[in-house]
């Protein structure tokens, strides 16, 4: 039996929930609250990959004794382990495009989405906690990169100037996806695929976080794409895993932007 460790159905955590529902693969939902940092406790499934994965905080899929992390690679795993779900595309070029989008979105889109979401929703939520206690807990986190991603939310790293630059940088990936959707309604080929699940989970929050970038006016094709994915029954089921009234406001530190500047 598959076990999915996930939080609110948003961004990284939403992806495997949709894919499992699309594949109609039975799984046990293991809900956790990343803000409580329970994912660092020894009781949480851990291996080298889950500790080092570049999303910092994300879903973990446990299949038998294997602990899988990295949300796009979990999508590929679900798709390949459930061939009847037709989530992988039928031809090598379609699969190349899906993987290239997965990589592009992970590196160009996800860091900015997570940063804007953390600045808007996670930072105020963490401010409400006992700061001394919170700092002491964050200081103990390993590895350094994950510790730093939590520290950045509370230490004022997301100032206005930084956020403005993040918004500006998000323009390129958003425009590229908008243009790609001119060629067809799905990202990687003629049919719906894991590339669309991936892009849906990462783009959806931008309508709220950066309406000047994603919305009816700025990106009519993305808006239509988001509507089409949202209408799928599997997406409805995935979103039903929410335990808070506003899952689209649930953010955790995500992948860091490129260190090259």
């Amino acid at each position, binding site marked *: 039996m598959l076990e999915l460790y996930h939080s609110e159905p948003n961004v990284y955590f939403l992806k495997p929930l949709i894919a499992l529902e699309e594949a109609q693969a039975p799984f046990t939902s293991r809900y956790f609250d990343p803000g409580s940092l329970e994912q660092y406790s020894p009781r949480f499934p851990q291996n*080298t*990959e889950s500790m*080092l*994965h*570049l999303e910092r905080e994300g879903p973990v899929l446990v*299949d038998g004794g*294997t602990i*899988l*992390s*990295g949300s796009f*690679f*979990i999508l*590929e*795993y679900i798709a*390949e*382990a459930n061939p009847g779900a037709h989530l992988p595309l039928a031809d*090598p*070029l379609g*699969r*190349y495009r899906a*993987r*290239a989008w997965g*990589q*592009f979105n*992970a*590196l160009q889109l996800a860091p900015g989405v997570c940063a804007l979401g953390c600045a808007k929703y996670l930072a105020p939520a963490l401010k409400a906690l006992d700061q001394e206690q919170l700092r002491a807990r964050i200081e103990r986190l390993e*590895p350094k990169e994950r510790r730093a991603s939590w520290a950045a939310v509370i230490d004022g790293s997301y100032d206005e100037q930084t956020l403005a630059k993040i918004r500006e940088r998000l323009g*390129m990936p958003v425009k590229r996806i908008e243009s790609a959707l001119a060629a067809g309604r799905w990202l990687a080929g003629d049919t719906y695929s894991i590339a669309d699940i991936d892009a849906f989970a990462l783009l959806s929050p931008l309508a709220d976080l950066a309406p000047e970038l994603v919305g009816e006016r700025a990106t009519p094709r993305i808006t239509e794409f988001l509507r089409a994915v949202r209408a799928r029954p599997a997406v409805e089921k995935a979103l039903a895993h929410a335990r808070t009234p506003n899952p689209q406001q649930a953010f955790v530190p995500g*992948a860091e932007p*490129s*260190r*090259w*500047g």
Partner: protein
Amino acid sequence: MLTLYHWEPNANSGKPMLALAEKGVAYQSHYLDLLNFDQHRPEYLRVNPDGTIPALVHDDRILTESTPMMEYIDEAFDGPPLRPADPKARWRMRWWMRFFDAYFAPSLSMIGWSVFVGPAVRHRDRRELEAAIERIPLESRRIAWRKAMFNEFSEGELAESRRRAAFGTDALEKHLTEHKWIAGDSFSLGDINGFNLGYALPISQPDRCNDQKTPHIMEWLRSIYERPATKATWAKGRTQMVERVKLLERKHAANRS
């Protein structure tokens, strides 16, 4: 018709070169000199408007992302499979390729660009270099080239890259202690990716990557180096940088005495 646009068998260019060699697939090779900015010239921008290397052109299909490109090569052509059949091992291969591509490689390449790429072009006329930067399509690549050309990497950035290079080396050694190959039991694209990133580690990180501290990495690099496809691919190199691979030649017993 299959054409690969590439630079030296090294890093991203070396990934599809080695994958094609392992598959035994013949291709038309189109060499671009990265240090001469061939990748930003109009004739290449018609192939890849992003101006990044490598690019694979298969009939009317153009592929420009090296890691997904390797999976395409494995799927689209006959030859020995370069991905494990087991989905879990495939997941492991992909997870590590991303760790290489997005964590380990950018840190090693920042060091490489500051000590090698930058100095290799820095002596040229400033206006010529500024004009070269202007022709780069992607903002992120313009920033990278500017930093390399004018030595604008901060000490803090370089120190963090050195820390990550050491951390990545240790993580890789641990992984190879538990698994013979990156994906597990069999040679795969993960090893091709890792070799392109790591073949020069014993030279660039001599205190960190050596027979005493990282015996598993050394054995892994040497076994990949000994594969005929690797030998054939590195023989296509045109510059000194690929000579570093020869350090992986095993010292025979006769030579030791």
